[in-house]
């Protein structure tokens, strides 16, 4: 079975540009979450979407936005990129429930120069 897939795997952008990261969840999973992992730290929660609705938002500026499509895939958009946005962006999918586990993709390595 295909796991969570993310694209692209690596990306280099210039300060001030915007970027779109994509995620396809595991088949049957309706919940998608996005995390930012800065080098040397644990993943930080950015967004969660379930059934195309935002269900949670972490402590990130409005430059970060996301959406979920009818096929449950998701996009993360970041505008006006800063050097500090350089990180590994992880997508996780899960079958929603009170007790459920998240499955992570390989991530997109974003470098802002």
């Amino acid at each position, binding site marked *: 079975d295909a*796991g*969570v897939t993310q694209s692209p795997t690596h990306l280099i952008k210039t300060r001030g540009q915007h970027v779109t990261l994509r995620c396809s969840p595991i088949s049957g999973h309706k*919940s998608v*979450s996005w*995390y930012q992992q800065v080098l*040397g*730290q*644990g*993943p*930080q*929660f950015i967004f*969660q979407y*379930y*059934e195309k609705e935002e*269900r*949670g938002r*972490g402590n990130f500026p409005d430059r970060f936005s996301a959406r979920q499509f009818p096929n449950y895939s998701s996009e993360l958009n970041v505008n006006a990129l800063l050097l500090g946005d350089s990180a590994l962006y*992880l997508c*996780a999918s*899960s079958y*929603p*429930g*009170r*007790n*459920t*586990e*998240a*499955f*992570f*993709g*390989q*991530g997109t390595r974003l470098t802002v120069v």
Partner: protein
Amino acid sequence: AQSVSQHNHHVILSEAASLELGCNYSYGGTVNLFWYVQYPGQHLQLLLKYFSGDPLVKGIKGFEAEFIKSKFSFNLRKPSVQWSDTAEYFCAVNAPNFGNEKLTFGTGTRLTIIP
């Protein structure tokens, strides 16, 4: 708000040594607890999870963890480590709410096993 503390930032062990990685969380209600592993160049993988029931949880690759509610702890253990256990280990917690599975992670522990 939830928070997770992992006290060991970098642990170096020889093969066959025993392992215990500490994890403490801060949250007043019911929690789900997880340990994830990130091998070099690979994605985060679930080692084990605790939802309810027996506080001693067994996971993959010989790992286990014990939930001690009174200490807000969920330490990871393995009796005899192998070189292939070299990786980054993350403890995580969330509240069991339907449709809101936000995970709060610790800062991670880098484990290096010397052959």
